[in-house]
């Protein structure tokens, strides 16, 4: 079984540009819509790129701001100034 990297975000306007950036940057991502939240799953690794979010948001955005809309996640986190990545790679 492939290891699944996963992130769950709020289903709201603040999270939407992040959700869209994830859908654009992670081919094969699977979407589970829940009431109030959305779970995004991807085999092995899932990443959020700062540039992709900023492009959609139209303002500067730091990956740490994700904490305001984050519900849950699975995978080892690698966070830096330009990305937020969850993966099972080493």
């Amino acid at each position, binding site marked *: 079984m492939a290891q699944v990297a996963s992130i769950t975000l709020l289903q709201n306007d603040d999270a939407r540009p992040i959700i869209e950036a994830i859908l654009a940057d992670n081919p094969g991502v699977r979407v589970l819509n829940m009431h109030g939240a959305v779970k995004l799953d991807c085999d092995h690794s899932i990443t959020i790129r700062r540039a992709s979010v900023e492009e959609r948001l139209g303002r500067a955005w730091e990956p740490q701001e994700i904490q*305001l809309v984050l519900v849950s996640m699975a995978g080892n986190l690698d966070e830096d100034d330009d990305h937020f990545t969850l993966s099972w790679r080493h």
Partner: protein
Amino acid sequence: MTVKKLGLRQRYEHMTRGLDWETTYQKMDDVFPYDSFEGIKIKDWSAWEDPFRLTMDTYWKFQAEKERKLYAVLDAFAQNNGQTNLSDGRYVNVVKLFLTGISPEEYQAHRGFAFTGRHLRGAGARVAAQMQSLDELRHLQTQVHTISHYNKFFDGISEFPHMHDRVWYLSVPKSFFDDARSAGPFEFMIAIGFAFEYLLTNLLFVPFMSGAAYNGDMSTVTFGFSAQSDESRHMTLGIEVIKFLLEQHPDNLPIVQKWVDKWFWRGHRLLGLVAMMMDYMLPKKVMSWKEAWDIYFVEAGGSLFQDLERYGLKMPKYADIATEEAEHISHQNWAVFYQYTHAAAFHTWMPDKEHLDWLSAKYPNTFDKYYRPRWELWAEMEKEGKRFYNMALPQLCQTCQIPMAYTEPGNPAAICFRATQFQGETYHFCSDGCKDIFDGEPEKYVQAWMPVQQIFQGNCGGATVPDVLAWYNMNAGADNMDYTGSPDEKIWKEWHPDADVARKAV
């Protein structure tokens, strides 16, 4: 000249390193007296990394923003009488169970992380534990604030701290956290940080809170997801702890494995309450407990333990039994509360036909065969005016403190009993998992405050049900018994005079 801003990594370095010092007036071992007796060996605390790289300044900024959003929603909910827009009056019972059974554990977690944050030698780990301690206090406070609005209209809420220390089923979560908090700091981190936060809280806060959203409880879903944004950080801390301990010394592996086995099983037992909330207490369903278990334990836990294999850590012992029980546990727990509704501070009911059909569809292997016939019989007895109450006090499992109502692995028609002898006394258990935990530390568990034994010993207000309920501060006739005929139902019908008609029309 513009000053260049520090990057995330540098900022984290500056705010978490070099904050501590080697003490000289007192020996380090006297300053940190609790971090060696568990046998955990740490060679290099500076190898500790928080992948979020969250520093206190940023922490305050984000937490303040989360609070502003949450309290705006709570204000709106109260001003617009949000309680009248719930899916059904029965829904409020999940909120009652949450406040009495879960919120006090947020406070216990706050205390536990404050202690751990004081007693670990590494500054990075101390900063992370400090933040989590503050988070947990925030969770308690926001939950109390949110649910205080429901307390204006519904029963079973107002005495929650008093009840938490006394009521029989609330001793289940209470004893879980008492066990963790009376352990050493490393076991506490594995128990709460890893086993509870990483493996199990998703099951509580994600599908259940989504259920709150679906049932019109805008306030609970908002505190739930606001708390859950902190939980993601806690989960990361939990996984960091386990990797750190396993990387520090090979001798740590058997100790950590034993804790993982123990706390997985204890958490599985505790979350049986949530299983019941999801399958029986949400008027509008989101997913079954079994479906949630498959997503959040089988799939997510499977990925995690595949990752931890490289350290030699194995899947928790009895994980297969827990997965088998996911098809039974919500039904068995609801049966307990239905039988003892006279002693519970929330209301119970038998599922209607639509609900029974949903359970049959979600549990094709078990529901029709083992549970539906019993529910239909009990519903029939209710109609005949012979509603079934169990007036005998149940035997409790010495470890999880849940009545001995669970069944044998592989045979759902037989109750599972296990027993052990210790210092001339016999102790009883609901499962091999709970028996193993006791056998690992019998000196600890013989001291457990067992609600039924305490009643028999005369320590709970008297020998009759009314005496004990009075000692619980339970308002008999309002807080307890079935939803049908309760003051909760009465007020709900006043708000929705045509509710029954609408229900039938659907």
